[in-house]
Each structure stands twice: as C-alpha cells, then as structure tokens.
C-alpha cells in the first residue's frame, strides 16, 4: 500500500515546452486526417512554427541561473538545460523552414512535422534530464522519431537503408546507455544524477561496477553524439535522410547529446573525473582521426559534412572533458555556433540538391558562386567557420574550447585539435574553391525555383556565425549564465 502513496510533485512549468510540442504534434496528426496534400502541409508547418516558437519563448523565460528540480529530482531545470532547449527548438524551427521550401516532403508534411515536434520534445527532455530513467525515455523518444524521419522517403531506397542502419546502431547505443545506467544503479543505489554523486561521495571512487557503468554510459552517449568510434551510422544516415532531416539531426541531436553528456558526467560522476577524462580523450582523438580521414575522401557534400560533424564531436567533447565552468561556457558558445553553421550549410546543400535533382557533390558547386553569389558567400562563411577562421564564431569557439582544455591541464587535446583543424582545412576549403572556380562552366542561370525560405535560413545563420564572431559578448554572457547554473 505504501508504494501507492508516493506523491510525485507535478510541475507543469518544468515540462511546458514538451507539453506544447507533444500537444501540437497530436493536433497535427488529428487534423491531418481531415486535410490532405498541400493544405495539410501548409497547416502543419504553420502550427509547428508557432509551437516551436512558443516552446523557445517558454524556455527563454525560464532561463534562470539557479537550478530547480522537478518531478522528484528526475528533472533539473537550469539555464544550461534551457539554453540547450532553445538551441534544439530553434534548430527544429529552421528545419521546418528548410523543409517548407522543398517539394519532396510535401506529401508527408503531417508525419514530418508531428515527428519533428516529438523529436524536439524528446531532445528537450533529455537536455533537462537528471536521472537515468528520464534520460533513457527521452533518448528513445527522440531516437524513434529520428529513425522514422530518416526513412521518411519510403520510395527512396537510400533513405530506407539509412533509416534501418540508424535504427540498428542507434538501438545498440541506447542499450549501452540503459545497461550503463543499470550498473551505476547497482553501484550506487540511485538513479538521479545528484543523488548518485552523493551516494558515491565516500568510499572507493573506482569500483569496478561503477566504472563499467560510467564506460557504458559514455559509449551510449557517444553513439548519439556521433563520436568516433561509434559514428559509423553517421555518413549513411546523413546522406540517406532527406536534407531537411539531416539539417535538423546534425544540429539538434548534437546539442541534446552534448548537453546531457556534460550534465551526467559532472553531476553524477565528479569523483570519477580522472577516469572519464582519459576515456573522453581517447574518444576525442578517435573523432579527430576518423572524422578527418573520412571527410578527406568524400566527394558527396552531405557525407563530407557528416564526417565533419564527427570531427566536431571531438572539439565539443574537448569542452566536456575540461569539466569546468569555462568548459561549460565554451560548450554552450560553440554549440550555438555549431548549430548555426550546420543548419545553414545543409540548407544550402538542400537548395543545390533541388536545382540539380541528385545528391550534391563538391564538383556540383563548381562556378555556383557566379550564379548565386549571396548564397555562395554564406556557404564560404560556414566553411571558414567550420575550419576555425576569424572573424567567425567558429574561431572564437575553438579558442574558447582550447582555453578550457589548457586551463584543465589538457593541452594535448588542444594541440590535437589544432592538427585536426589543419587537416580539416583541406576538405572544407574544397567547397569555396569549387564555388568560385574560374574555369568551371557557370551553371545555367537558375531562375526557378528560388527557395526564398532556405535562402533566408542560410543567410540568417551566416549572420549569426559572423555576428557572434565579431560581437561575441551577448552570447558569452548567456553561456556564462548557462554554465554557472550547472557548475554553481
């Protein structure tokens, strides 16, 4: 009888964004039954934009520098999580815009938007999750949505194959996480991160059961963060998925995975940091090597960018490995820039894909700079930022992350990152060289269609990337608040 009397306090405000998103997803599904084709697509897109905008606003209002717990400690509502939420929702919003300009998803507009909103809700829950149970539930919620989204082009074999690969590998990752959580529970008797740390505050910090659990958790999160050597699904899934879905995945999944990684490691396992630092360092170097070597060989732009996200996991995890307030700031700053760069770059790839009607290779950009100068300059900005050139945010982000690494005595990670960046230049700069290739036959003037929404998304994100590179203080202030809410 006593078990039934446990009262879990319900806090609607803590999960307001999830409620908004899931309720809207339900509405879209129901209304989708009565509407068809173009009108359903239009309506679901409009409703999704409103819902995502509202969810962003709600998270923004609750952007507080002190942490508050909800649902009996299973959620931790703090500025760090809210910042992650806002990034996820904004990426989702931009993905809606990218998809709206494209024809291919129009027939499945209802499913696309409902799944996208559910995925956002799952990621959002993950960003504020404070227990292994909610972590797993949130992870599965967004993962299942993404499996379907990747395979949403059911008449496209590549898309189906990508979805299947992602499903299998992703499930393995989730299993690792679940098993890791179970081992940690066995070692500590707790599921909530802060209580795990409290339970483990005394005694041997390096128990075998516990360390195995931490390792499994790292592996499980590594799969979601497409960190090497758990990245093998990334190029296929990114290539096969419809480009708007890739746009969303590349930005939002990474934000959610990195936010929870830092949160779980610093709040649940502070005393084990000496061990997981080494594990992370191994993963980081694997990311640099696998990501860069993979990207060097790619002709397909989406695959190249997919491998580039693997290499970038290395940079982002460097900030996690620093596990300091400075590292948290660096992570939030760079995640913002990172999301903007990837959304913008994939939005441009989507445009080019529609112009030529097949997967885009680097060579397909040859001479494009002369027919679409503005978009090409935006693409150059993204590539320069990915490669870490000033005055873009990508440069300051790297400086920030390396400062955090150095401050934590991990100069070797910064040096590894510098070498990885230099190698990365070779493939990033291929794109600008192709865009402004003087010898290339200028692609026939492309009058129709114009993709104004995609163009707007890529130009806006380019402005974000350059703007926060030149005037970084507003973003750094937000990042400081977010980081302080986690590190106190």
């Amino acid at each position, binding site marked *: 009888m006593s078990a039934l009397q446990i009262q879990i306090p319900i806090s609607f405000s803590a999960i307001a964004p999830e409620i908004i998103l899931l309720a809207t997803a339900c509405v879209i599904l129901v209304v989708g039954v009565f509407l068809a084709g173009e009108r359903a697509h239009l309506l679901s897109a409009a409703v999704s934009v409103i819902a995502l905008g509202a969810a962003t606003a709600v998270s923004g209002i609750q952007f507080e520098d002190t942490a508050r717990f909800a649902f009996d400690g299973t959620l931790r509502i703090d500025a760090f999580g809210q910042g992650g939420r806002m990034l996820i929702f904004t990426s989702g919003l931009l993905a809606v815009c990218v998809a709206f300009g494209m024809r291919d998803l129009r027939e499945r507009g209802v499913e696309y938007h409902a799944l996208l909103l559910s995925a956002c809700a799952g990621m959002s829950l993950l960003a504020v999750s404070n227990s292994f149970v909610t972590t797993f539930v949130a992870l599965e919620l967004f993962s299942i949505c993404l499996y379907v989204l990747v395979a949403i082009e059911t008449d496209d074999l590549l898309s189906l194959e990508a979805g299947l690969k992602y499903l299998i590998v992703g499930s393995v990752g989730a299993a690792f996480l679940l098993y890791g959580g179970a081992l940690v529970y066995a070692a500590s008797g707790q599921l909530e991160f802060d209580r795990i740390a409290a339970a483990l505050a005394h005694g041997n910090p390096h128990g075998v059961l516990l360390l195995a659990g931490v390792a499994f958790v790292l592996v499980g999160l590594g799969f979601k963060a497409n960190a090497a050597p758990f990245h093998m699904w990334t190029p296929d899934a990114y290539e096969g998925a419809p480009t708007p879905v890739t746009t969303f995945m590349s930005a939002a999944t990474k934000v959610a995975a990195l936010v929870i990684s830092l949160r779980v490691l610093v709040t649940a396992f502070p005393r084990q940091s000496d061990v997981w630092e080494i594990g992370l360092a191994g993963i980081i170097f694997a990311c640099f090597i696998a990501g860069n070597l993979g990207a060097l060989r790619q002709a397909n732009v989406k695959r190249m960018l997919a491998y580039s996200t693997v290499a970038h996991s290395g940079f982002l995890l460097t900030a996690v490995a620093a596990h300091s307030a400075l590292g948290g700031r660096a992570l939030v700053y760079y995640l913002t820039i990172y999301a903007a760069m990837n959304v913008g770059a994939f939005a441009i790839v989507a445009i080019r894909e529609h112009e030529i009607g097949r997967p885009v290779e680097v060579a397909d950009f040859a001479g494009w700079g002369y027919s679409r100068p503005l978009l090409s300059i935006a693409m150059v900005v993204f590539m*320069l930022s990915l490669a870490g050139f000033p005055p873009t945010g990508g440069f300051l982000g790297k400086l920030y992350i390396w400062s*955090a690494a150095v401050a934590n005595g991990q100069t070797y990670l910064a040096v590894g990152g*510098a070498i990885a960046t230099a190698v990365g230049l070779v493939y990033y700069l291929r794109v600008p060289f192709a865009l402004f290739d003087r010898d290339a036959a200028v692609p026939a003037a492309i009058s129709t269609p114009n993709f104004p929404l995609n163009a707007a998304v890529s130009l806006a994100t380019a402005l974000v990337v350059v703007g926060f590179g030149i005037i970084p203080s507003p973003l*750094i202030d937000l990042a400081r608040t977010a980081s302080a809410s986690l590190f106190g």
Partner: protein
Amino acid sequence: MTSALIFLPFAGALVVGLAPLPRRLTELLALLVTLAECALGAVALIGFDAGGGAQYVENREWISDFGLNTSVRYHVSMNGLSLFMVLLTAVGIAAAVGVAIRMGRERPRAYFALVLVLESALVLLFTAQDLVLFYVGWEIMMIPLYVLMGVWGGAGRRAATMQFVVYTLVGSLLMLVAIAYLGVTAGTFERQALIANPHEPTWLFFAFAAAFCIKAPLFPLHAWLPSAYRESSPEVAALLSGVVSKAGAYGLITFAVPLFPRTAHDWRWLLLGLALAGLLYGSLVAFRQPDARGVIAYSSLAQMNLIVIGIFAFNVNGVAGATFQMVNHGVVSLAAFLLIGIVEARTGTNLFASLGGLANGRPMFSTVFLIAALWALAVPGSSVFVSELYILIGAFQQEALLGAAAALGIVLAAMYMLRWYSALAHEDDGERVPAGMPDLRLGELAIAVPLILIMLALTAYPFGVMDRIT
C-alpha cells in the same frame, strides 16, 4: 588614427564589393581608397614622435569576460616598426592596385574588395597589441590571399594555393593553442603585460616561431614559396614577398622574441643555423632559376633569412639592421615583382630564354629595372647596403664565423641580381618581345617611379627610419 588606418580599407572594401559600379569606377574607387590610406599613413608618420614609444593608442574592451577573469581587448597602437610596416602595406597595396588596374583583372569588384580586406587585416596585425586581436588580423589576412591566389592565379593555382594554405595554417593553429595557453596561465592576452611577466615553456616559443617562420619563410619551411610566387598574379606575388613575408619577421621581433626572451636566446643557434643555410641556399638556387619570378622568389627567401639572422643575432645592430632591411626589402621586392608583372603583361612570359633586350631603345625600362636590381643586390651607398651592413655587424658581434658566412650571401646576391637584369635587359630582343615594344607608359611609370623615389629617399636619409624603429 590607428583605427582609421584599419577600417578605412575595410569600409572601402564593402563599398567596392557591394556597389554595382562599372569597372572604371570600381577601379578608380579602389585606387582612391588606397591612396587615401597612403595619405593617412603619411599624416601618421609626420605626427609620429621619434622617441615616443607606442603611439596612436586605442584600447577598449572587445570581449569583456572571456572567462577566468580574462578579457580580450581591442588594443591597437603603433611603435616605429609598426608605423613603417603600415606604411609599407599602404604603399604596397596602392602599387598592387595600380598594377591590377593596368592588367584589367576579371571581376574587379570582388578582386579589389579582397585586396582592400587584405590591407585592413595587415594594418590590424601590424598594430594589434592583444594576442587574440593579432591572431584575428593574422588569419583574416590569409583569407583574401587564398582567394586571390586560388581564383586569379595561374594554371597551377589550385595546388599552389592548397600547399600555401596547409603550410601557413599548421603554423598558425599551433600559435592559437599557444595563445590560449598564455591567456589561461597568465590571465591576460595583452602583449605588454605578458612581456613584463614572461611564461616560457619551450614549446610556446616554438609554436609562435613556427607560425612566423613559415610565413617569412625560414629555411627549410619554404616549400610553399616557389609555387605560390609563380602561380599568383604578379601584384599578389609582390604583396606576398614585399609585405606578407614581413608579417612573419614582424611577428618574430614583436611577439616570439620578447614574449619568450630566454627560450629564444637559448635556441638562437638553431634559428641562426637554419637562416644561414636558407640565405646561402636561396641565393644559390636564385642564381639557377630560368625565370624572372623564380630569381626574385628565391632571393626573397634569402633576404628573409638574412633578416632572421639579424633578429637572432641578439644585439642592437642586428635587430636595427633587420628592421630596416624589412622596410628596404619590402619596397625592393614590391618593385621587382611589379616590374616583372609589367613585362609579363607585354610579353606573356617571364622565362629568360624568351626575353632580353628590354634596354634596346627603352631607357625608362632599363633605368627602372637597373635601380631595382642594384638596390636588391645592396650596392654600396644604397639603403639596402646600410641595413645589410648592420645585420652583418650584428652577426659578427654574435660570432665572427657567422658574419663571414652571411657576407657570402651578399656576394651571391650580386651574382643573381646582375644575371637577372642582364637576362632581361641586354642583348637582342627576346623571341617573345614584340617588335617595337614601346617603353614604359605613363600609367606604368606612375607605379614604378614612386617606388623608386621611396628607395632613393630611404637611401638619402636612412636614419629617418632607423631612429624611429629602434
């Protein structure tokens, strides 16, 4: 004042790049901006107090709270060396724009906008007093160079650019890690504060030195140089050799050595040895080049290594000579590459085998070429002679044998420069020289004569520069 010098070309770049003006107006506008920059530089020179240290200071917050109580500051100022590097930049860019107009570059809006961005970045890096700000200028400088080389270059531009990119960035990214390290450990990115309170793990010095020595370039880090100088358009090659390479030497003098004085001193023999090897190697290879650009490219390598010898001689004479030589060599190699550019525009080649006889009935041509050649070989009485003499004295003071070996480089310079001049100017007209090719035109003289006048001015009054630099 400093900010005006930094942002005037940048504003010009925006206008030139975005305003849909016809070719003539774009060119005119770009030229006017560069001339205005020269005038602004001249005003700065006149107002400069020779013994006054850092002047035209502007210091405000850029990133107020970077973390760990560190801020990144927009701190720019000019000391004597900065001032003359800025002037060299202004003159070099103006001359390059002049040549580009003469050549009629394709897509002039993009071209001139990039050249102006380059100018802006160069001025920023020559005046920045905050390490992050310096790095920003240093890297932004590279972007227009890549594009100018990769888009407007010659047939082998793609490979040349890629090589240049990878070489220069490996160096500068390590420097960025070192900057992050300094910022975190010292709690400041300010140059003065870091000099006052040196932190010197050995690797930091090498991380900085690598970036600068690749750019200069120090032997044996010069593999990018021959193709970059050959495949770029002549005005870009002129800027690379005349101005951008000086950014490397400037970095050594202003950052690498003062930030890590003990490490630099401990390791000076490594750099001196490499520089000496580079001086002799570059001079010998220059003597064997089949083309006019090749000679100047390798002579530029040799001269930059001579400058490095002056810097690492670690005495007043060596450093004074090195800094003055930076100015001299900048002007001379600008002139040499731009003159080659004019020859290439007329004949379509710079191979000695197809050229010759430029002096036949073309007095202006031969005079201008001869002056450039004589200055490049440091004829006694010229400003280059003064600066090389100082470097040699510095080298002798450090180690007599070093001075003696370096002096050999001066002899070799006479050999390759006289061969250069002779192959271009003497004998009968080469096969690619059009029959009855006219002498230099007014537009071309307008580019060459100011550079020659600057060389003469430096010669007539070398202490006008040296007093301000040291």
